[in-house]
């Protein structure tokens, strides 16, 4: 059984086709980086895996069943929102709010719920952090709490939407390492979307590169090449490898803008 299996999958967003007839399969304990230019459909693909966007064509199966919303086996960390950073609520309540949060009733946790919150906080080493208000935490610390929240209910597939956005290189590295360690320890599949490839190098099993309605899945060496990316960007792309890092260039411009190239 695959964690994700897309067959001839087409997705549209706002009437515009973002994926047109793509097929790929992700194995059950793979760490896959989802990359591609803005608007290539990284978030739309995740929303389709969550059952929030219906395919306009083809099928997508998650853990052997058609993607459907409310699947407890899928963990999800949405893209960073500024409102979370401003909340005065402490981390524990923020994480606990997601425990069985779809059920009607009072937001009170029983023993099992409290143990589950304690378990996920321990997994990301955020037990002490969770006593502080969200607004007093750094971006990297908040990401750990969001990751803990995504791990509630022991998901077999984890979807992380741009967890590195607005983090400095040091914290980016810490998040990637933490996710990689968790993925190996728990033996789960992870889809990790990002703007830049370099922070993920060394942690990834494979790359799912989206662009121009198409997708390419493979190892970094297979996918991050001039011919493959030229097809996905629809223009001439050069790939330059330098000191263990990779730069994707369109003409003379780096398409993945790496603000931290000196780091």
């Amino acid at each position: 059984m695959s964690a994700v299996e897309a067959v001839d999958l087409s997705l549209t967003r706002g009437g515009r086709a973002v994926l047109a007839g793509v097929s790929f399969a992700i194995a059950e304990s793979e760490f896959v980086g989802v990359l591609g230019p803005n608007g290539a459909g990284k978030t739309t693909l995740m929303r389709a895996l969550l059952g929030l966007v219906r395919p306009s064509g083809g099928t997508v199966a998650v853990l052997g069943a058609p993607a459907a919303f409310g699947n407890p086996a899928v963990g999800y960390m949405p893209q960073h929102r500024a409102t979370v950073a401003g909340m005065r609520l402490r981390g524990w309540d923020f994480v606990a709010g997601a425990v069985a949060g779809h059920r009607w009733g009072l937001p009170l946790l029983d023993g099992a719920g409290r143990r589950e919150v304690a378990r996920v906080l321990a997994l990301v080493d955020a037990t002490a952090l969770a006593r502080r208000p969200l607004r007093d935490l750094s971006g990297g610390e908040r990401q750990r709490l969001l990751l803990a929240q995504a791990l509630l209910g022991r998901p077999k597939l984890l979807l992380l939407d741009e967890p590195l956005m607005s983090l400095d290189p040091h914290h980016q590295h810490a998040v990637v390492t933490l996710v990689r360690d968790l993925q190996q320890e728990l033996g789960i599949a992870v889809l990790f979307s990002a703007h830049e490839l370099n922070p993920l190098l060394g942690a990834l099993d494979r790359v799912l590169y989206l662009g121009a309605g198409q997708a390419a899945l493979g190892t970094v060496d297979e996918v991050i090449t001039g011919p493959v990316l030229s097809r996905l960007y629809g223009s001439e792309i050069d790939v330059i490898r330098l000191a263990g890092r990779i730069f994707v260039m369109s003409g003379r411009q780096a398409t993945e803008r790496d603000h931290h190239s000196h780091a």
Partner: protein
Amino acid sequence: MLDYEFMRNGFVAAGIVAVLAGLVGYFLVLRGQSFAGHALAHVGFTGATGAVLIGASPLWGMVLVTVGGGIGMGLIGERLQNRDVAIGVVLSMALGLGLLFLHFFTAYATQATALLFGNVLGVTTHTIFALLGLALVSIAGLGVIARPLLFATLQPELAEAKGVRLRLVSVLFLALVGLATAECSQIVGVLLVFTLMVGPAATSQLLTPQLGWGLGLSVALALGQAWLGLVLAFYTDWPTSFWITALSGASYLVVSGWASSMTRM
């Protein structure tokens, strides 16, 4: 002080409303929808004066319009964001229409003052039962939606993925806000609903980051401010609504000053 029936009624009515306002207000502030309470109060004024005009009870006229308004706001939802001019225009029109209704109902300027600024000392036993019934319905409703409401407030995208119907939860909550607004208007009037719904809840969120304590503290502050306002009004003969707004505002300002000095340290 408690020898007077109007004072006893005032304490009971203010108590009922403060508990409801503290609970609903906490979620309202957490969701960043504070102005929804203010907006619903404005349209509620039209409902109340319209009801008076046709000879019905202003409380029920207001309840009808605020609950309807809340449901409407929930349905329109995100399209309301960044539409402050449109919202302002509609709210002003609602108040203007309310004024027109009052004009047709010539006799009572006191009625207008009571609706706008509240008249807790004029609450009858009959009204108390109505307030109690509405408060119980609202609190029970909040108890039913509290968990998905909290989830949807903290992490809407994740909540949606886990099966929370965001639109439904938002509509139900704003209907409850409508009820709470109509109740608050009976105590402090439509123009000062903010003082009971938002003041105590916002102060509480500055004081504690814990959800459970925060809700309790929000209720305690609303109750304390409403009752102390009544006591002060009794001894000074100044309007009750003035004292409640003064206590609510002063608590918020003192606490937020203290909180920001703590973060600077």
